[in-house]
């Protein structure tokens, strides 16, 4: 089991912890973008380097097989990580107070 249990440190993680677990040095954004939620088989590290970016040693998109090309498509888009939101308003505790404005229709419907 790879897990993270941190001792309380003054600010930054200890060097040994980060060295053993490089993912601890990733930003929150990078870590959660890296979770393979769809479970599609991950490409090997060698071929996963920057597809479509030849400058980083990746392959040109047109050199990939159809299967490889569509495997790497992020069909679900890339959601933004850690977007701050405003707290929800607590629902007002409205009690069903009997209304005082009884109309003639209301009154007559009592005898309906």
């Amino acid at each position: 089991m790879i897990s993270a249990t941190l001792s309380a440190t003054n600010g930054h993680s200890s060097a040994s912890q980060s060295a053993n677990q490089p993912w601890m040095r990733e930003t929150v954004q990078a870590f959660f973008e890296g979770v393979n939620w769809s479970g599609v088989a991950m490409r090997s590290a060698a071929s996963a380097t920057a597809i479509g970016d030849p400058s980083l040693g990746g392959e040109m998109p047109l050199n990939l097989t159809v299967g490889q090309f569509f495997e790497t498509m992020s069909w679900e888009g890339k959601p933004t990580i850690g977007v701050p939101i405003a707290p929800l308003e607590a629902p007002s505790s409205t009690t069903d107070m009997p209304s005082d404005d009884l109309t003639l229709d209301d009154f007559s419907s009592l005898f309906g």
Partner: protein
Amino acid sequence: MVSVADLLVDGRLPGNYFAQDLYVRGSTELGLLENRRGDRLLAIPNPLLQAIYAGLEKETGQASKLVLYNCGRWWGKNFYARFCEELADYYSQPLANLSMAEFLQSLQQCWKTHGWGQITLDITYRDQGFLCLEIDHSPFTAAAPDSQSPSGDLERGILEIFFSQLTGRELVCVQTSCTTRGDDANRFVIGLGKRLQAATALVANGQSHQSIMQALVQQG
């Protein structure tokens, strides 16, 4: 010669924001509890927790789990909003830019300081699309009556909405082990709903967390 001043960012070194001695303040004479920003805190005594479980069971029966889960989702959204805001203010940068070490330490300390037990992130199945969380010493399931099905519905709702908001995806949380069933800790798995459908039946069959995770990974 290294100057300490050169190591500081903006002349300060962010520490442990949720440290209990600093985070919780209040006047016992007035019966007021606040956090370090002045937001009100509520202390819930154990008998009240037990009464909530007992009362819900009596009033709503089987639906009590759903009620607690929905309470968790509602409250968890506010928890996420405040957690984000407080950390962003403290570190002077958006939550997304924090390192995972800072984020996890803050989440763990926050959980502990609020008295909800010890939360641990397990990334064993990250590449398969699942994140696991373990909660030890949960006061919620400690107060829940013994049950053959997991009772951490409040926490399940909180974790589900917290990580859905954080990742910007509709994620689902399933509890795979629970102290009320005699397990050693409460464990939860988070992932896409369609990939966790099998988990519910496996939990109902009393499968262990490990075997549930193996089954989820093998389903592809």
